[in-house]
Structure formats: structure tokens, C-alpha cells
């Protein structure tokens, strides 16, 4: 083997399922570090006095401390260190955009490759699930106060976990038949095994959180009625689930799905498992419109469902693509083709209303727009049509008005998101907090958790001392 030239050792690569194998299965793609690799990677950390990584972390996980614990083989202690700040490390270790957060700030990244903080976080969480003693964090004495949490995504799960530990009686309401929010219906099994989300939820239930699924707040029960039923405080974490369409001709054809519908059928309703009754159009030539994580997830799912060709249609260039690097990289390795600077104009179907093709236009980049990104401008005469029997629209999502329209006391901004104090999550309605995507618009798991943590702190304060 060649001697390392630089003093900075290279980062230990994450073992992965080979691309040609994994594109046909729903098993997790990265396999995780073993103990030895984890310890070796952990020793790369130089334990900065003023660690930049922590500043890059939205919930300020004590990163150098947990890495030191790994380096010294004190795994159980390491995971407990993370838990102080992050209740869902197995999730965050897998789906956080580390390259733009902790790892993006790591000092080693300036000269070589940053410490694999995400992989190490995942390692500890997985180690605890497999080998840990399963001991639960200690709960404070019961306060007799009742809290309702609406929505069981990362924001709601965080609030429920924090407040149950503080001794409150917590009930978690979820519209779907399974808890977890986007973690179960959106992010596919091959990126985030559902068993992990289930085990996190089980822990909450063991701690005493009362889980009520199949309940749409705003229809089955209103926010006001929750107070009448004896709840002292309410947290709203209902996410940003309203799918956007492009309003182009042919979008109602059979075979055109919103990413939400496609991923919900695949993940939550397990269309890929023959034991489940869920029907789904299995495309041969698939077009996915959009360039974010959602688009990557839809494209990779379509491949696994048996598509022959899957194309991502994105109207800007590679640099503007909002997906995590790892995701677009994985997608490409698996055979997803990227059609950049391309915009769909219309979908066409046959006489039975089934999608047969999509017509697109090529784009070029013009002047920067309000978002600071160069605006795509259509190229005249560049229209072209390609075969396509399944199209998935992943161009963003907005706030779902179901709950908010039933409670006019909760003030909204002009996009329909809840206005909440960024410091503590308080809304305009006394006793009601909000956080996560319903406040910020579609964002990330860790930001939703961060918002949940701030709200929980403020709610605890309120329950002890008042609004």
C-alpha cells in the first residue's frame, strides 16, 4: 500500500451495497461502520478547542465529546451524550445534510476530508439498538399537566419526548395509521429503514406517551376542543404536505403522480411488497420532475419498482440542484439519468387517459433571480417529446390548510404557514405552539427537531409558570 502523503488521514469510506445490486432491492444502501472502523474514524478528530462542527449543527450536538467516547470504546456513554441534544440520532445520522452542516464546518475539511460525523452518529445509535441495555432516560415527577401534540413527524416526536421526560402527560395525535410523518411515508426504506422509526416511537410509548393514530385534528377534533377535553397546551407539527403541481396540460392523466402520492403508496402502503394490496402504476419509462431529495427518492424508488429507464427532469443546472450530494450521487450510480436545464411543457395520453409521453423544452441560465440563483430561460425551438408512462411531480409542497383553516385564532403568513416565534414556537393563540415544516415551509429533519426542542422548553415553562 502507498504511504499517505498528507498528515490528514483519509476518511473511512462507508461500506455500501453495490449499485447494480441495490437498484433492485429496498434494503438499506449504506451498511454502516463496524466497531473497528468507527473507532479508527473517531481518532481522526483532533478534538478542537473551539469546534466548528458544533456550530454547524442546528441543535448543537456535543460532537467532539461523542466522537472521543467512540475513539475510546465507550459507546454507551457516547450515545447518551448525543441524546442530551438529539432524540433521533439513528434518523439524523442517516438523513441530515451533514456536508452543509457539521461536516461542512469541520476543520479537517479545509485541507482534506472532514470527519465522518454522520456515519459515527449512526454507528452509535445502531450499536445502542443492537447491544445497548435498552435503559430509558429518567423521567421527572408527574406534573399532572396534559399536552396534546398534533403530528408525529420529527417535530412532534421531539416535543413528545422532551415533555414526557419533564413529567407531563403527553398525547400524540396522528392523521395516518402509522406514526413518523415524512420519516415513514416519504423517505424510502432503502435510506431509512422503517424499523428504526418504529423503535424510536416504541421508546416514546415506553416512556408513557399516549399515541392516537387515525385522528385528523381539525376534522375529528378541533384545537379548541382539545382544551375543552382538558389539555393544557397544544403543539402543532403537521408538516408541509400539500403537493404542488405545475398546472400544465395533461397533469390529470393516469400515470401522473405527485411525489407524495407515489412515495406514500410505495413506503407507507408498501406497494413494493406483494403481501400488500396497494396498487401502483409501474412505469417502464419514468420521468421525475424536480431536483430535491424528494425527486431523488422518487426516482430511486421507481428504479426499484422495476422501471427500465428513470430520468430526472430539472430546469436549472447541477449546481442549483437542492438534493443532498449523497442522494444525487447514489441516484446516478444506480442508473438514474439527469436531464438538466429541461422543463416539461405538457403530458400526453392515449384514448384511455393513460400517460404516454412528455414534451419538454431546453433551458439556459440567465440573470440571478430573487433567490440568488440564476434564472432558467427557455430556449426557443428546443421542444422535444419522449416516451413516458409514469411521471412523478416533485416540485415542492406547501402548508396543508386542514388544521389551520379550522382554527382562525392561529395566525398564518401569506403562504399559509403558521406564524410562530422563532425563539420559542409560540403562535398567536394562547397555549398553542407550532414548529417544523408547517412554520418554515419544507425544510429538514434536524430543523424540525430543533424547532420542537425550543417549543418544548417554552411549553414546559408555560406549564410551570404561565404564558
Amino acid at each position, binding site marked *: 500500500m502507498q504511504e499517505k502523503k498528507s498528515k490528514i488521514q483519509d476518511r473511512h469510506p462507508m461500506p455500501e451495497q453495490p449499485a447494480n445490486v441495490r437498484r433492485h432491492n429496498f434494503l438499506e444502501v449504506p451498511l454502516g461502520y463496524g466497531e473497528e472502523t468507527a473507532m479508527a474514524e473517531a481518532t481522526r478528530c483532533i478534538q478542537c478547542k473551539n469546534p466548528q462542527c458544533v456550530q454547524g449543527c442546528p441543535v448543537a450536538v456535543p460532537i467532539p465529546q461523542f466522537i472521543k467516547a467512540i475513539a475510546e470504546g465507550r459507546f454507551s456513554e457516547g450515545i447518551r451524550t448525543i441524546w442530551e441534544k438529539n432524540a433521533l440520532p439513528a434518523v439524523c445520522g442517516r438523513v441530515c445534510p451533514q456536508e452543509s452542516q457539521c461536516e461542512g464546518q469541520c476543520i479537517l475539511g479545509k485541507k482534506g476530508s472532514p470527519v465522518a460525523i454522520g456515519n459515527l452518529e449512526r454507528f452509535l445509535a445502531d450499536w445502542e439498538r443492537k447491544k445497548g441495555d435498552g435503559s430509558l432516560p429518567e423521567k421527572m415527577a408527574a406534573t399532572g399537566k396534559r399536552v396534546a401534540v398534533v403530528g408525529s413527524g420529527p417535530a412532534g416526536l421531539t416535543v413528545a419526548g422532551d415533555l414526557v421526560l419533564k413529567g407531563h402527560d403527553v398525547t400524540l395525535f396522528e*392523521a*395516518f*395509521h402509522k406514526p413518523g410523518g415524512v420519516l415513514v411515508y416519504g423517505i424510502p426504506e432503502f435510506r431509512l429503514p422503517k424499523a428504526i422509526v418504529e423503535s424510536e416511537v416504541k421508546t416514546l410509548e415506553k416512556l408513557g406517551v399516549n399515541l392516537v*393514530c*387515525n*385522528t*385528523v385534528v381539525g*376534522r*375529528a*377534533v378541533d384545537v379548541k376542543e382539545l382544551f375543552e377535553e382538558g389539555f393544557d397546551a397544544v403543539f402543532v407539527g403537521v408538516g408541509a*404536505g*400539500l*403537493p404542488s*403541481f405545475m*398546472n400544465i396540460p395533461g*397533469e*390529470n*392523466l*393516469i400515470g401522473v*403522480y*405527485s411525489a*407524495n*402520492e407515489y412515495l*406514500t*403508496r410505495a413506503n407507507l*402502503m*408498501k406497494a413494493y*411488497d406483494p*403481501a*400488500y*394490496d*396497494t*396498487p*401502483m*402504476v409501474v412505469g417502464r419509462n419514468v420521468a421525475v420532475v424536480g431536483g430535491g431529495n424528494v425527486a431523488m427518492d422518487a426516482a430511486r424508488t421507481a428504479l426499484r419498482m422495476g422501471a427500465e429507464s428513470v430520468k430526472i427532469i430539472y430546469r436549472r443546472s447541477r449546481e442549483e440542484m437542492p438534493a443532498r450530494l449523497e442522494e444525487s450521487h447514489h441516484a446516478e450510480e444506480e442508473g438514474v439519468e439527469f436531464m438538466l436545464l429541461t422543463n416539461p411543457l405538457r403530458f400526453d395520453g392515449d384514448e*384511455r*387517459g393513460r400517460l404516454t409521453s412528455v414534451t419538454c423544452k431546453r433551458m439556459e441560465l440567465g440573470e440571478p433571480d430573487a433567490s440568488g440563483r440564476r434564472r432558467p430561460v427557455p430556449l426557443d425551438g428546443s421542444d422535444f417529446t419522449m416516451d413516458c408512462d409514469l411521471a412523478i411531480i416533485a416540485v415542492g409542497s406547501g402548508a*396543508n*390548510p*386542514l388544521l389551520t383553516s379550522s382554527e382562525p385564532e392561529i395566525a398564518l403568513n401569506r403562504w399559509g404557514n403558521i406564524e410562530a416565534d422563532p425563539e420559542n414556537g409560540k403562535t398567536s393563540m394562547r397555549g398553542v405552539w407550532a414548529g417544523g415544516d408547517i412554520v418554515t415551509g419544507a425544510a429538514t429533519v434536524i430543523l424540525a427537531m430543533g424547532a420542537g426542542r425550543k417549543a418544548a422548553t417554552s411549553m414546559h415553562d408555560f406549564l410551570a409558570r404561565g404564558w
Partner: protein
Amino acid sequence: MFKIVKREELVPSSVILHEIHAPRVAQKTRPGQFVIVKATETGERIPLTMADTDPVAGTVTIIFMVVGKSTALFASLQEGEGYADLIGPLGRATDIEKVGHVVCIGGGTGIAVLHPIARAMKEAGNRLTVILGARSADFMILKDRMSALADTFISVSDDGSTGKKGFVTDALQETLALGKPELVVAIGPVPMMKAVSEMTRPDGIHTLVSLNPIMIDGTGMCGGCRVSVGDKVKFACVDGPEFDGHAVDFDGLSQRLSAYKEEEQAAMEIHRCRMEAQAANSDQQS
């Protein structure tokens, strides 16, 4: 589990009534709203309207036609068994007002959906003409209850085995000839709702229809239930299921409803084979 406290076959092995224990839903439901039910962990989420609710007993009643694999599975559930999941109430409730003369038209299992709306319209003080249509006498469900609500009751069937021979539109034509009603509510198969809406359009008679597109979440999250109404795309689960019949794109709705025909036929075949194999097995054992 949501337990079935009462089961009845309104039409033998074809139209089934289930009264289900679901107190929270029973308390909150108003006419026009629906539930989504799922029989087992591996089952589909299927939307069904509540034909009745009993807030005191804490039950909701669904009446469904066996059309595919999921509804066949539901039909096999007996009293004491139940649904793994039941979500509701979903959708907007019907605006119930005293407007004068209301014509309520129900076709097939649409009669079940119409029942709570007709009752509420009557309770609000409207004069009610009820027109029910079915394939044959066997499929004419809730006839006694509906005729008891009506000031004028007309039933028609395709084969003349009950009421007059003909379609609901024939009966509607006769009714319209007597005077212009303030409101028509039509619930049934898509072609029926379309034909009724065309008939009331020239006179501009306000016509409500209840749509049944394919749904998954029922909360506005997937967009699967989208229908074109006027020049807008609406989500039937949150904006509906009731819409102005004169604005609905019925042809688009029909097309979208056929989305899984092939997949479902295959599923139904497999389901039948399994049931037959099971039956054969138990025959051998007994």
C-alpha cells in the same frame, strides 16, 4: 381495532352494511362526510361515506358495494370482527339550509350516501322529492327509510322490477315539468350524476353531486383525488366530496377512476382463487 357491532346483507353478497364502534367519529360526523377504512395491516385505505351515525351508541354505519378485492375483504368481516383502522370524519359536511323544494336523487350505493343528507334536508324544513334508481328490485337499498322521509317518492329500475321501468333522469324530467326546484342533490354512478347535471343546466337549477375519486390519505396530502371543477383543480377529500355538478369534469373523473382496473382485476382473480382454495380445504377437513 374498530369493532363491527352489526352486519347486514342488504343485497346478498353484494351490498353490505356494517355498523362500527367508533365513538369519537360518531360524535363529530355531519351529513356528507366520509371515513377511510383499512381492514388489515396489509390492506388498502378505502373511502366510504357514513350512511348513518349514532352518537349515543357511538357507532357509524357504512354501506358498500362489493366491487373489488378490498370491498370483498370487507364483506367477509363478521359481527365481532373489525377494521384495523378507521379515520374520520373526513371531507366537508353538506351545507344544510331551508331553501324550499329539494330533489334528492340516489343511484345504487349512492342511495346510502344520500340518506343522511336527505334526512338533514328534511329536518331543516325543506319539501323533499326523493328519486331512487337501481338495476333491479334487489339493489334498491334503504327504500323504506327514504320513502318515509320524502314528501314525494319515486323509484325506478332498469328492468321495472321495482317502481317504474326507466332511469332516474326520466323521473327527474317529470318532476321538473311540475315546477323548478331550488336544489337538486344527485349521488350515484358518474354517468348518472353527469346526466342529471346536464338536465338541470339549462334552467340553472343548483345541483350538488358527491364525487368518489380514488383516495389515499383523505387529508389533502397526496393529490390523488384531484378533479377538475370549473377551471380549477380541486382535491375531493378536503374541498369536497360535494361539488357543483354544472362545473365538474365528469369525463376526467371517469378516466381517473379506471386507473387501477387492470391491477385490481388481477388482484381480484388471485383473491377468488385463494377463497376457493380455502373453501376446498375446509370442505376436505369437514
